C-alpha cells in the first residue's frame, strides 16, 4: 500500500475544497494512504520567495522537517506548493550554508531538516507511482467520448528538474486516456494562467485566461482538466469577467483531474466536490459511460 505525507496547502482548505475531496476519494479507492502533515503551514505561495528568500525557505523547510519525522515522501496537490517544497529540498541539499541558517531557525521548534525526503506532485503519484495501467484497471465508468484539454499549467515542469520533458510532456494525456477520456491536442497546455497577476494586474491576467479558454474551445474540448487550484480559479471563476472584458461567450467547465478520475472510478459526483462550480458541467458529463457529442 502506498503511503505519503500529505500536504494539502492553503487553497485546498477553502477555495479548492473540491480538489481536496476528490483527492481523498480517489486515493482511497486506489489504495493510497495520505497522512496529512501534522500542523503544516503555508508554503509561501508564489509571492513569499520574492519578499524574503531565507524566510520562505524556512517556511517550507518546516513542513518538510515535520514530514521527515514520518519517514514518508511528501505529496502536494497544488503546483505552487509542490514547486516551492521541491526546490527547497534541492537548494538546501546543494547549499549547506543555507541549510545551516534554516535549521538554526527550525531548532526553535525542535525540528531539523536533513533533506532526506522526496516531494511529489499529486499528478505524479497518479501517473507514475500508480501508472496508467493500474488506473485503467480501476475504471468502471470510462469517460468515453469526453474531450478533455489537459491543462498542465506552468509550474509543474518549470524550473526543469533533471531531464524531464518541459516542451511536450504527455503524462497528463496518458492518464486521461487511461480513464477512457479523449485528451485533445491543446497547444497552450503549458502556458501560464496569470497566477496572482489576476490580483495585481487584472487586465493582463484576464487576457491570458482568455487565450487559454479560446484555445480550449478551438481544440474542441468539452472540459479543461487542471492540476492546480490557482489555474482552476483563474480559468473558471473569472470566466464571466473575461466575457465582459472581451465580449466573448465562454462557458467552459474547469475541473480537477482527480474529479474526472473519480467519475471514471464510479465515485458519486457529490463526494468529488461537484456542485460548487461557477460554470456547470453539462449533465451528460456527470453520467460517464455514454458517448458525448462534441459541443459547438
Amino acid at each position, binding site marked *: 500500500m502506498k503511503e505519503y505525507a500529505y500536504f494539502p496547502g492553503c487553497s485546498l482548505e477553502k477555495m479548492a475544497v473540491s480538489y481536496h475531496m476528490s483527492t481523498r476519494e480517489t486515493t482511497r479507492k486506489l489504495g493510497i494512504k495520505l497522512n496529512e502533515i501534522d500542523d503544516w503551514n503555508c508554503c509561501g505561495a508564489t509571492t513569499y520567495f520574492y519578499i524574503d528568500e531565507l524566510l520562505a525557505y524556512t517556511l517550507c523547510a518546516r513542513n518538510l522537517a515535520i514530514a521527515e519525522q514520518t519517514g514518508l515522501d511528501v505529496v502536494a496537490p497544488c503546483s505552487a506548493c509542490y514547486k516551492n517544497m521541491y526546490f527547497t529540498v534541492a537548494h538546501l541539499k546543494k547549499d549547506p550554508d543555507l541549510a545551516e541558517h534554516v535549521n538554526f531557525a527550525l531548532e526553535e521548534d525542535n525540528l531539523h531538516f536533513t533533506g532526506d525526503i522526496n516531494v511529489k506532485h499529486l499528478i505524479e503519484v497518479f501517473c507514475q507511482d500508480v501508472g496508467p495501467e493500474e488506473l485503467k484497471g480501476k475504471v468502471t465508468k470510462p469517460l468515453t467520448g469526453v474531450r478533455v484539454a489537459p491543462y498542465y499549467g506552468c509550474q509543474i515542469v518549470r524550473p526543469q528538474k533533471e531531464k524531464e*520533458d518541459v*516542451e*511536450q510532456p504527455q503524462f497528463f494525456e496518458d492518464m486521461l486516456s487511461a480513464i477512457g477520456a479523449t485528451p485533445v491536442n491543446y*497547444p497552450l497546455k503549458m502556458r501560464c494562467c496569470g497566477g496572482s497577476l489576476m490580483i495585481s494586474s487584472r487586465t493582463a491576467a484576464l487576457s491570458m485566461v482568455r487565450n487559454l479558454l*479560446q*484555445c480550449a474551445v*478551438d481544440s474542441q474540448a468539452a472540459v479543461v482538466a487542471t492540476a492546480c487550484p490557482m489555474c482552476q480559479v483563474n480559468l473558471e471563476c473569472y470566466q464571466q469577467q473575461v466575457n465582459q472584458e472581451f465580449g466573448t461567450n465562454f462557458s467552459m467547465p474547469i475541473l480537477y483531474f482527480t474529479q474526472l478520475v473519480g467519475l471514471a472510478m464510479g465515485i458519486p459526483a457529490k463526494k468529488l466536490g461537484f456542485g460548487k462550480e461557477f460554470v456547470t458541467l453539462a449533465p451528460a458529463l456527470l453520467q460517464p459511460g455514454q458517448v458525448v457529442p462534441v459541443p459547438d
Partner: protein
Amino acid sequence: MEKKEKIGVYVCHCGTNIAGVVNVGEVSAWAADKLKDQGVVIARDYKFMCSSLGQELIQKDIKEMGLTRVVVAACSPHLHEKTFRNASKGAGLNPYLTELVSIREQDSWVHTDKVAATEKAKAIISGGVSRVIHHEALEPLHVPIHPDTLVVGGGIAGIQAALEIADAGFHVYLVEREPTIGGHMAQFDKTFPTLDCSACILTPKMVDAGNHPNITLLTYSEVEKVDGYVGSFTVTIRKRARGIKEADCTGCGICWEKCPKKVVDNVFEAGMGNRKAVYVPFPQAVPKYPVIDRINCTYYIKGTCKACEKFCPTNAIDFAQEDEIMNVQVGNVILATGYDPFDSRRITQYGYGRLANVFTSLEFERLCNAAGPTGGNIVLRDGKTAPQVVGIVHCVGSRDKNYNEYCSAICCMQSLKFAHLVRERTGAEVYNFYIDIRTAAKSYEEFYHRLLDEGTHFIRGKVAEISDAVRLPGEEGKLIIQVEDTLTGNQLRVPVDMAILSAGLEPRRDSKAVAKLFGISCSADGWFIERHPKLDPVATVTEGIYIAGCVQGPKDIPASVAQGAAAAARILGKIQQKEVALEPVRATVNEAQCSGCRICNNVCPFNAILFHEDKMVSEVNPALCQGCGTCVAACPAGAISGTGFSNEQILSQIDGLLFLNIPKKEAVAA
C-alpha cells in the same frame, strides 16, 4: 669511470610566451651549474630556438664542442620535435639523441605563479637531461607504400580525392554505402552562391569517377575490417548483394517501372517521396545498376511477384545473389563519409513531425528539386497549395547549448538560398529568423545583399516556438512563429503558411564505430580529429589515414572539395616516395633474458609478437610493432626493451623531475 655525455641545454624564450612567465635566464644558468654532474657542458637561452638562427646555435655547439646529446626546452614535441632532430642531424648528431621538453604548453602557458613556473621548468629540464643520457642513436624504419588507395565515402569530397589520385595514374578503391555515389550534394537543388544546379555540376564528376579506368567503384558496399599499418593496409570490404547481375544490366529501368511495390524513400527523398522496391536512388545514379531492397521486396517477404525478373530484357535479375567479401591491399586511406543532418524532431517546440507544414532543410531541398517528389514545385504538405508566407528558421540544433554548441557553417547561406528560391518560384513573402548572418566566404556577402534587395524580411531573434494555436484575426489556418525581434525589442507573432527549419550538421550516427575501425580518434561530438587544427586539417595522428570533407567538421562544398584534393595530394606525395619513414619507437626482446612465458604475446593488440617454439623465446616483428610499450611493462623478466621509451630513460626522467640527480638535493617545493 663511465664516459660522461656532453649535453647542451637550450632554453627557448618563445618571445614572451615562455619568457613572460618563466625566468629563462635563471633556468639556463641553473642548468649549466646544477646539472654539470649529469654532463651538461653548455646551457643557452634564446628568443626563438625554432628559427634558423636558433637551430644554428645548436649546430655550432655540436660541431665545436662535440656535443653528444641535446636537450631543448621549448614548445610541445608535437610541434617541433622534428625541427630540432633535423637540426642535430644537420650537424652530424643522430637525431634521436635530441630531446625536446615542453616548458610552454606544460608550464608557462598554464601557470600564473612565476616562481612556481620557473621551478617547474627547472624540474622539466632536469628530467629531460637525465633521460637523454640514456637515448640511443636510432635509425627510422622504412616501409614500402602500396600504390593503391582506399577512399571511403562517395560524396563530393571522396569523389574529388578519388579523381585526383586516379588522374595522377594510381589506382583507387572508392567505397560507398549507398547504391550510388553523390552523397548529400546529389539531393540539393541549387548550390550557393552561384545558384548552379547541384546535379549539373556534380554528375559530370560522378560519371568521370564511374568511368575512370583507375577507379574501382564499390557502391552498396561497406568496409568491415582494417588490418595492417601505413603503406600496407589490408581492408575487408563487403559488397552487398544488389540482386542485379551488373554484367548483364543495361540500366534500362524496366524493372523499377514494372515493380508494384512502392516504398517511402527515407534516404534520398528525405521521406517526401516514394521509390520502388527495386530502384536507383535518382536518375543520374552512378553506377546505373539498380538495387533490390530485400526488406521491402515482395519476393523476399512472401516469395511471390518477381515482376522485375519477368520483364528484364537481359535477364539481369538474380534473387539468389549473395554478398561478396573482398580483401584489398592499399597503402593509404581517405575517410570522406560526410555528415547527418540534425534531427529536428528533438526540438519539440518547433513542431517538426507534429505540425504538418514544418519542413526540414533537406525536405525543402527535395521540394525544390525538379526531379523531386513535387517536380520542383514549392507546395505545402497537401501537395498542391503554394505558400504565401514562408518563415525560415536559422540555427536549428546549432549554436545551442541544449543540442550542439558549434555553428554548422552552411545554414545561413542555405537559408538565404531558400529565401531566394521561395521568392523566385512562388512570389511568397519570406521571413528569415537569424542569430547572426554568417556569410564569410567568397561572394557570400554579396549574395546576402542580393537577398536584402529582393525584399526578404530579416528578423534577428532565435525562434521560441512554432505553434498552430491561433489567436488574432488573420491567423486562421496558419502556423504562428513566436520570436523576439531583438533589434526592436518587440515580441512578434509571425503567421506563416510554411516553416523551414535550417537544421545543423552532425557527425554520422556511426562515426565513433567507423573511427574505431580505422584506428583514429573522434572528438566528443563525433567529428574526426585532424592532426593539427590549424596546420594539418586533412591528416590524422594515425599514419596513412586521412580525412576530408564534413567528416572533419561542418563545411561548404568548396571547402570539402579542397580537402579532398589536399588529402589526395598528400597521398600522391607518399606514393611517389615509394616508402615512408616510421618512427623507430619499437619493442625488442632480449633473447637471452626471455624465459618464454609468452605473457607479452597476448598483450599485443597488433599480434606483432611471435613465439619461436624451437628456441622457446618471443620475438617482436618490428614492422607490425606500433611502439605502445605495453609488452615492455608486462614482461616479468624485464627482457623487453622499448626504444625511445626504455625503462632506464623513464626512470632517469623521474629522478630528474624530482631533482634526485643533483648531488646536493634542492629544496623540493614546500
